[in-house]
C-alpha cells in the first residue's frame, strides 16, 4: 500500500527519470516540498532540475511558461492552491492563451500542481476550492484525482501531455493508502471511474469529496438505495458520455463537490444533463457561499459531509 502523496512522488520521479526535459520549480522543492512530494529529488536530479525558488509566484508560474516555450517540460509547484491567486496573469492571460494567440506556434507543455481544498482547519486563505473557474477558462486541462493510483496515472499523463495541465492535488487525501503499480501508466483525461453500481440514482463527484460520497453511498445501500457512483477524475475534459448514460439509466442525478455550490462545476454537469435528458431529476450538494471558517465546529457545519449527501439524495429520491 502506498499513500497518495507518495504515489505522486513516485509518478514525478518516474517521469523525471524518463525524460531529461522534465524539471520542477517551486518554493522549498529542493527540500522535498511542503508535503514531501519531492523527497529525494534534489540528490537524484540535481539543483538545475529541482529548483527551490524565492516566494515569487508570478515568476514561478511565468518562468515555467517561458521554459516550456524553449522546449523543457516544467512541473510548476504552487505549494498551496490559494497562492495561485498571486500568479493569475501568468496562468490566465499567458499560459492558457499563448498557443491560441500565436496561432499554434507555441505549445506550453507544462503541469501546474496546486494542492487544494479543505485541510486541517487552515481557514479561508489556505482551503479554497476554485477548480470550477478553470473549467470555464479556455486553453487548460483540469485534473482532480481522488486515489493514489489515479493520482499517479493522471500525473504521468499530465507530464506527458503537450497541453497545459492544471493538476489539483487533493491535499486532504495525501495520507490515503492504495495500490500503485511499479510502472505507472498514464490515465487518459476525460474518463470517469465507476466506484459503485446502482439503480436508484447517480452520484457524480471527484477529488477530496470521494470518500464522503462512498461513505454516503454505503449507508444508503444499507437501506436498499443503490447509487451509481462516478468519480470524474478530470473536470476538463470531463466524461459527459458516462454521466449521461448513467443518469439516463437511473433517472436521477446528484452532483456533490467540496466547492461552494453556487457556480461550482456541479452547475455545469447538471445543466448539461438537464439540457440533454428531458424529465431527468437533478440535485447538487456543495458548500454554502461563505469563506471557510477556522473554528472546527464552524468548518464542520458548512463542509459537505456524508450526512448532507445522504439528505440530498433522499430529497432527490422523494421528488
Amino acid at each position, binding site marked *: 500500500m502506498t499513500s497518495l502523496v507518495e504515489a505522486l512522488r513516485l509518478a514525478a520521479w518516474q517521469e523525471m527519470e524518463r525524460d531529461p526535459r522534465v524539471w520542477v520549480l517551486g*518554493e*522549498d522543492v529542493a*527540500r522535498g516540498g*511542503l508535503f514531501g512530494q519531492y523527497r529525494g529529488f534534489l540528490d537524484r536530479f540535481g539543483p538545475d532540475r529541482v529548483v*527551490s*525558488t*524565492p*516566494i*515569487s*509566484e*508570478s515568476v514561478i508560474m511565468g518562468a515555467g511558461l517561458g521554459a516550456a516555450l524553449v522546449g523543457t517540460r516544467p512541473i510548476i509547484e504552487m505549494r498551496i492552491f*490559494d*497562492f495561485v*491567486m*498571486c500568479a493569475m496573469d501568468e496562468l490566465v492571460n499567458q499560459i492558457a492563451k499563448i498557443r491560441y494567440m500565436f496561432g499554434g506556434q507555441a505549445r506550453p507543455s507544462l503541469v501546474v500542481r496546486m494542492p487544494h481544498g479543505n485541510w*486541517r*482547519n*487552515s*481557514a*479561508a*486563505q*489556505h482551503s479554497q476550492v476554485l477548480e470550477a473557474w478553470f473549467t470555464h477558462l479556455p486553453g487548460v486541462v483540469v485534473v482532480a484525482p481522488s486515489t493514489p493510483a489515479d493520482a499517479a496515472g493522471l500525473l504521468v499523463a499530465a507530464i506527458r501531455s503537450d497541453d497545459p495541465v492544471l493538476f489539483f492535488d487533493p491535499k486532504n487525501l495525501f495520507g490515503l493508502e492504495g495500490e500503485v503499480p511499479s510502472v505507472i501508466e498514464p490515465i487518459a483525461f476525460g474518463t470517469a471511474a465507476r466506484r459503485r453500481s446502482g439503480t436508484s440514482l447517480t452520484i457524480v463527484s471527484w477529488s477530496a469529496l470521494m470518500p464522503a460520497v462512498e461513505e454516503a453511498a454505503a449507508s444508503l445501500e444499507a437501506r436498499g438505495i443503490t447509487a451509481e457512483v462516478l468519480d470524474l477524475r478530470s473536470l476538463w475534459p470531463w466524461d459527459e458520455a458516462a454521466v449521461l448514460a448513467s443518469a439516463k439509466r437511473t433517472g436521477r442525478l446528484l452532483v456533490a463537490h467540496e466547492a461552494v455550490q453556487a457556480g461550482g462545476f456541479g452547475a455545469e454537469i447538471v445543466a448539461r444533463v438537464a439540457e440533454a435528458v428531458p424529465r431527468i431529476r437533478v440535485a447538487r450538494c456543495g458548500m*454554502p*457561499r*461563505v*469563506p471557510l*471558517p*477556522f*473554528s*472546527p*465546529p*464552524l*468548518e464542520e*457545519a*458548512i463542509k459537505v459531509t456524508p450526512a448532507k449527501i445522504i439528505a440530498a439524495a433522499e430529497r432527490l429520491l422523494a421528488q
Partner: protein
Amino acid sequence: MPQTNAAHLRALHRSMCRIRAFEETALAAHKAGEIPGPLHVSIGQEGVAAGVCLNLRRDDRITSNHRGHGHALAKGAGVAGMMEELFGRAGGHCGGKGGSMHIADFSVGMLGANGVVAGGIPIAVGAAQGLKLLGQDSIAVCFFGDGAINRGPFLEGLNWAALYRLPVLFVCEDNQVAAFTRAQDVTAGPGVAARSESLGVPATTVDGNDVLAVDAATARLVAEVRGGAGPRLLQAMTYRHTGHTSTDPAAWRAADEVAAAKAGEPIARFEARLVAEGIATAAELAAVRAEAEAEMAQARQNALAAPWPDLATAYSDVLGS
C-alpha cells in the same frame, strides 16, 4: 540610560516577556492538541514587535503577516481574545473564524495578520493613504518578513508609498529564513535596504535582538513619518528560534547556529542591561516573567473552557448586515 524613561524600558521588557510567554503557551497548547490549524510563533523575535509597537499610538494602524501574535500583543490586542481565537472559540477577536493566521483586533488598530506572504503590504499602504485623505495624523506600520521582499507587492507598495509621501513605516523582520529556505539562497543583490532606497524609501537597519536599538530607530522613524516626511523602512535583523510552524523541527539548521542565536536572544540580553544599569533587579525581572507566564497560562485555561461559536455565525459576516 536616563531614569526618566525607566517606565518605558520596563514596558519594553514586559511586552517582550508577554510575547514570549504567549508563544510558548500557544506552542504547548498546539502540541497538546488544544489549538487546531497551523501555528507560527515568533520566539526570539520579540524585540522587533515590542520595540516598534511601543512607539505607536492606539490610533496608529498595523498590518502583520502569518507570524503575527507578537505584533498584535505589542499593539495592545487583548490576550483573552487572542488565545480564544487560536482555540477557535466564540470569544476570539474574530469569533473563531480566523485563527492564528488571521488574528486581528481593530479596536487597537491591529488590521490583521495575513496568510499570504506580502499580503499586508498593499493594505498598509492603502490604510496610510486613507488616513491621509481623512486628514488624520495617525500612521500605518507594515510588518513583513525577509521572504516578502521577493514578491511583487513589495516593489509596488514601496514605490506607491514614496510617490504619494504616505505615512507608512515598513518593518522588515529579517530572520534570514523563509519557511525551509535561507534568505541568502533566494535573495539577489544587497538586500531589502538597498531595494527600499531604490524605490525612494529611506531605509535603516538595526539589530532586531537589541530592543533598545529597535526602540530608538522606531522613535525617530515614526516621528519622521508622522511629520509628513513620507514612508520609511526599518530592517530588523533577528532569528527564528523554532521551526517555521509548530510542527516543523527545522532539523536542517546546524545545532551550533541555533545555539548561538539563542545565546543572543533579546530578553536575556535586555535584562542583563537593565540590571547592569540599575533600572531593575534580577528578582523584579523574574517576577515580570512569572507574571506574564501566569497571565498566559490563565488565558489558555480560559480558552480551553470557553464556549465554541454559535453555528449560526458560520453563515454571518459574508454580505449584507
